[in-house]
């Protein structure tokens, strides 16, 4: 008996002494060690999350808010956007993705790069970081920036948009100052295999976009244009997409592919963009047919271009069913555009116009349209003639350059980057609201009331059942702070209202 007691005591004693090792099992075998990670392992994660948000959700809502898109017959998934309604909940997961997966990953890369003085990586990460922060400000107006990405501070303060814009410009300048054109850059999908030169050019173009948006100094803008060290082509995620699930271009994967259970159709063309790209006279005869239209929207079931009215899904109609409407052109391998050549040229045109150089402005305006046509896949040999046709319909007016550029840019971005179209619409304030309202073109009780010919090319119109707090004749200027922030962060400011412009649109 005593023996047993002694043995038990011994076992207990042994257990106690080896306790420390026995207990040291709390490092997750499911995670790589932090020390095993490097920029090439983390950077692609940031890129694909940025492409996932920018190329899908932001593309969709931008499309509705800029009157490129309406909701198709029969479904109602995005009908609220079509009425210019945005809620704190709707954008929440995108806000989460941009912060915790894009910016967090970029922070890791910047840290690795700084430690190892890999300035090419540092510039690449800083450029995408600046791009992401600009996007966040363009949605919400204010976001946590100076106190952000710090796990010890659960309630970071929001910074106003101007502060964020200034901050990211300074960051870009800092990173540009460190990187040399020949520096190598970690694994990435934007400029695979290319040295830092490609990123320097992209960073310069991004600076132009940021400065132009915020109304930055013309001296700075002029110097950038003078230097002209911009990308030679569109900056986009292209060539990396595949046709398998998990590899498809995000907008296509979500709205067109059949991987997520049954796919409902939502997004179809708005009368505003169709009516501005295929301009008709009062008899319905086509006055101007934009060559980019087939690249942006599919024809409807009858082989025509038709546009729905914001705010309705024609659910009470017996004639205007889903085959009556035009879906956007999309494919599994479609690019996710971050910044196009055409936009750079539009910013140049704007700079020249602003500084009174009308000739140069008009040339840049034409070049921007031509470049947009190249992006739409039009043979460069024809692009010049087609641009001349375009400028006959939409001539450049120095006296009203914001209108000319605003409308031209809105059209150019329709099938390329609807979110940027929505931003520039708010800043340039063109196209502007015309006198025709959505209810003038369709009243939901009577199919005969659908009269798309009432639409005036190059204008916006108030959606049917326009979201009350936005009100007819107004754009949705900003989004309620994302629920994942406002419900969790006591320092989230109170919402200034749907029609309070973001600082650059005031």
């Amino acid at each position, binding site marked *: 008996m005593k023996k047993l007691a002694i043995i038990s005591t011994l076992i207990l004693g042994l257990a106690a002494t080896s306790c420390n090792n026995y207990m040291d099992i709390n490092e997750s075998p499911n995670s790589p060690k932090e020390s095993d990670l490097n920029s090439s392992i983390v950077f692609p994660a940031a890129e694909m*999350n940025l492409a996932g948000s920018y190329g899908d959700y932001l593309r969709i809502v931008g499309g509705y808010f800029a009157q490129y898109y309406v909701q198709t017959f029969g479904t109602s998934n995005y009908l609220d956007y079509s009425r210019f309604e945005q809620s704190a909940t709707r954008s929440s997961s995108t806000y989460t993705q941009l*912060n915790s997966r894009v910016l967090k990953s970029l922070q890791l890369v910047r840290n690795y790069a700084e430690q190892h003085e890999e300035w090419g990586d540092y510039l690449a990460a800083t450029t995408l970081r600046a791009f992401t922060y600009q996007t966040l400000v363009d949605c919400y107006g204010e976001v946590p920036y100076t106190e952000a990405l710090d796990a010890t501070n659960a309630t970071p303060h929001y910074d106003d948009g101007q502060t964020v814009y200034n901050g990211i410009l300074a960051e870009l300048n800092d990173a540009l100052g460190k990187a040399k054109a020949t520096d190598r850059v970690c694994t990435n999908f934007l400029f695979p295999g290319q040295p830092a030169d490609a990123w320097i050019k992209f960073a310069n173009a991004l600076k132009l976009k940021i400065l132009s948006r915020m109304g930055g100094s013309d001296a700075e803008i002029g110097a950038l244009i003078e230097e002209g060290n911009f990308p030679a082509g569109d900056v986009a995620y292209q060539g990396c997409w595949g046709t*398998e699930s998990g590899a498809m271009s995000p907008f296509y994967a979500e709205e067109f592919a059949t991987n997520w259970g049954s796919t*409902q159709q939502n997004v179809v063309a708005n009368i505003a963009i169709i009516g501005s790209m295929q301009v008709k006279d009062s008899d319905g005869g086509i006055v101007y047919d934009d060559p980019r239209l087939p690249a942006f929207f599919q024809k409807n079931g009858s082989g025509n271009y038709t546009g729905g009215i914001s705010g309705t899904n024609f659910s009470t109609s017996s004639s205007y069913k889903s085959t009556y409407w035009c879906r956007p052109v999309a494919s599994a391998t479609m690019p996710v555009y971050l910044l196009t050549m055409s936009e750079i040229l539009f910013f140049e045109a704007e700079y020249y116009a602003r500084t009174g150089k009308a000739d140069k402005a008009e040339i840049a305006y034409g070049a921007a349209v031509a470049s947009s046509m190249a992006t739409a896949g039009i043979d460069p040999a024809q692009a010049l003639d087609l641009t001349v046709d375009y400028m006959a319909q939409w001539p450049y007016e120095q006296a009203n350059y914001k209108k000319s550029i605003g409308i031209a840019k809105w059209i150019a971005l329709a099938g390329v980057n609807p979110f940027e179209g929505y931003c520039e619409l708010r800043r340039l304030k063109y196209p502007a609201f015309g006198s025709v309202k959505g209810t003038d073109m369709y009243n939901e009780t009577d199919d005969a009331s659908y009269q798309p010919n009432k639409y005036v090319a190059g204008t916006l119109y108030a959606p049917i059942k326009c979201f009350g707090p936005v009100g007819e004749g107004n754009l949705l200027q900003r989004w309620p702070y994302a629920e994942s922030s406002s*419900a969790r962060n006591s320092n989230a400011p109170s919402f200034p209202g749907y029609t309070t412009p973001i600082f650059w649109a005031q």
Partner: protein
Amino acid sequence: MKKRLTMFLAALFLCMGTALAQTKVTGTVLSQEDGQPIIGAAVKVDGTSTGMLTDVNGKFSLTLPHGKNQITVSYLGYEAKTVTAKNGMRVFLKADATSLDEVVVTAMGITRQQKTLGYSAQTLDNEQLTAGKLTDVTSAMAGKVAGVQINTTSSDPGQANSVIIRGISSINGNNQPLYVVDGVPLVQTNFRGTQKEQDQFSNAVGGVSNINPNDIENMTVLKGAAATALYGSRAANGVIIITTKTGKKNGERNFQISYDGSVSWRSVATLPKMQNQFGQGWNGKQTFIENGSWGPELDGSTQVYGPIWNHQQLIHKYEAVENNIKDFFESGVNTSHSVSLNGVSGDQKMTYYLSYSYTADNGILPGDKDTYKRNTIATRASYKATDWMKISANMNLAKTNTNTVAAYQGTSFIDGIMEFPRDLSLVDRKHLNSAFDTPEAWYTPYGITNPYWAIENNYNHNDAKQVFGKIQADINPIKQLTLTYRFGFDYTDYDHKLGYPQIALDDALINNDYGYAPSNMNQSGYVSDTYYRKYELNHDFLANFADKYVGGKLDLNVNVGVNINERNRNYMEGQTDDLTFYSGFWQLSNGATKTTLADYTYKRRLVGLFGDVSIGWDEMIYLGLTARNDWSSTLPKDKNSFFYPGATLSWIFTRLIPKNNVLTFGKLRAAFGKTGNDADEYRVYPNFLQAYSNGYYGSDLTKFPFNGVNAFQASSTIGSNSLKPEMTTEIEFGLNLALFNNRINIDFAWYNRTTDDQIFTLPVDPSTGYSYMVTNFGKVRNRGIELLVNTTPIQTKDFRWELGFNFSKNNNKVVSMPESLDGGMVNLNSFSAGSDAVYMRAVEGLPMGELFTYLPQYTADGKLIVDANGQPLKTTEVKDTGKNVNADWTGGVTTSLWYKGISLSAALDVRKGGYMFSRTKNLMQFTGNGEATIYNQRRPFVIPNSVHEDGTENVTPIYRSDGSYQTWFNDFGANEVGEFYLIDRSFVKLRNITLAYQFPKSLVSKLYLSDITLSLFCNNVFTWTHKANRYIDPEVSSYGNDLEGMFGELYSNPACRTFGFNVGLKF
């Protein structure tokens, strides 16, 4: 009666006297309460070793030695009686003064007399647990234990239950008690649906659900921290101790064979109330392809519906098919059989128990797609090798197979049913042999399809196995000391397979799709596999010292022990998309594109050192002191040790007053206890995971490896290296009273439980870089009362009526939140669709689970503010509704009537107050199928008493014809905005009625049996819900079975009523 049977063993001193000279006497021992014979009572001739046990008729026959005529008759649970022997005598035994003399099993398998306990412990015996013939023992507890709330995820076969004792303390998710079977903790494994299924079910695949209720001797619920402290950190939510049956001597036989078999049927009990006035259509107009009833008024005319396929179209009468949903469901059948053999060896040194059970359950859905099968084998044996050593071993095997029909959007059946227009007949579409019965030409292409087709073609199958048991040695080096070593193990695995069929329609034969082509239903299909393994090992070393001093007045009981615990789970998940074979071939090789695999391992260890001292004086005052120290692997290395003490005091004050017939027994008790708790695994160091990106609806829109590149990103949760253990502190005061010789028993408890420094994964602003931060979270308090009253209003020789009440009221409050939150709030669960959202939150100063949503706005004088369209103006942010998920109080009434061999019992369960989220309710108005959607007969109206923001009167009507009537329901919840999703959770539920007949012993013994019992039962007999709830059984949940599950339901499958009969035989 069962108790008497099981107590045969009590009199081990049996020996047959042989004497010389001698009077022979015969007699009968009867119960004073009901006049029934007592079987197995010990009859002993005083001053001799002569004695015997009474037979099945309570009869005994003794030969009295010369000069001896006093006999003592005793039986456990009765007061012993010494009488003068007479031939043909009848001895009536009176039940013990109090059932509180009953022995209960408390922490670490330590047995105590109920009356000495300083805390609340409620025991249910086998009879109470098996009356309703429920497959799962936790279901059988419902309504019977004060302060315990049982919720079911649904009444689908094989679904797991939620058991919450004394309210929600842990905000972090796990509020389920620890189950301990014969001293061994069981891993409670519930399988919840994958992300793709949106967690629409919760199958029980291990743990307590695999215990055959017939194997259980009794179950004790330990509620307070003082009661559970010895179990350590895992017992913070209470402990349910299950003691299984062991081998016993059965009268004259050394063994007993029992059979128990039942058949029951289930049928749908609760369906939403539907309107029968309007038919298929949308926004007031008739459509042929809409899934809803927003069309014109039903007029009995003949109408076509659905697409034109191959120049054919379906026709029907445009009139209500009132039972189109009810008729879809069939009655499910449950059969169960249980056989057991138990006994002791001839020399009484060895006991054995062997049982086998089989349960097959088929739910209410057509065909055999919702089924649950369970086979269990239980063996136990003990051997007393010498008088100082006993070896025992238990081994249990369980195997379950579950087919589940998960409810969710997609091609789910529940959507297919609930959105079905009121004028179409569903049962006519069950044959699946025509294009009109499949997605190819189903009447609607809007994301749902024929529910019969969905059930037939979606696959969700789970095979699980569990092995658990123990090996134990008990050694008594000296009489007062018992040394125990116990090795306990529990291994569970499951293989879960999920298959969604491919739908690849080309619309080639569709002549007219009426606006939206069936090919919009196309999906590429997928197969997903999970292989899951989980084990838990426990080593317990326990020393118990018990002795009495000062002439038996001082009662000392000391326990010291060590527990070493290891828990491990690992699983591998695989998924493949784009199926090659559209349906039925559910292997990963079916994927035409890529197959993804991922594996995970989680392991934790815990070492605990504990001690417990109980001192009693004169069977009047008992003082208990407990302490435990744990070392946990899941806490930061330098802070992984934590200590927590407890103390209890009980005072049997009736020892001070003379015996009387009014106050039979009285005890006051007080308890203070602490329980520490550790974190989940891997919550200290930063973690990284393989990168992915989400879309708005689709998760993993982009998956790595991507285009030949792999990538990692930081986990959305950041750990903390400064975690402290969380600590639950509980104070409890209680009173036990027995009045009028036990005719009234009262057990009252007041408790105050606070949980400090909860280890919580706090949702944080993602701009911190993370969505969740592991942190020690403020303080949550549960304070409440529990009252249990058991009465026997009538007791005569042949008739007995028992009536029991239980009542509990728990007040929950979030006392403080983490400082880092700066007065913020925390989302516990949420639902959002479009611009609608409902949140369940923890907010400082409010009860846990406050519900927030977008609300209508009113002027100061109470007028509803509307927008330019004449629709209510919603708040920009979600607001506090003032409603929360907690009940105001819960209660239950149980009653039983016995007349001779007949017994009738019933259990009624009441829950008052609390709200829940109901997607079913929302769906009823989205589709226009719900009764509420015929407001104002769907005629135009201006919202009464409404104004614009500027104060001008609202004159804009809401019309059916332009869709604004429907919008008023869909987007503005008929003026209630987001509150339209909430329903009052109150109910009164007649949970069970059982009528049983126990055949007379005389008849039974002629059949060479010892017991025959037949019973008829009905469960979930009727539920009365709050008048505003015309939709669902408020007990269901779609979000698993804990705090999250309190939120409510997202298209839950309907609740069921079961009725059946049972045969119990004992040989």
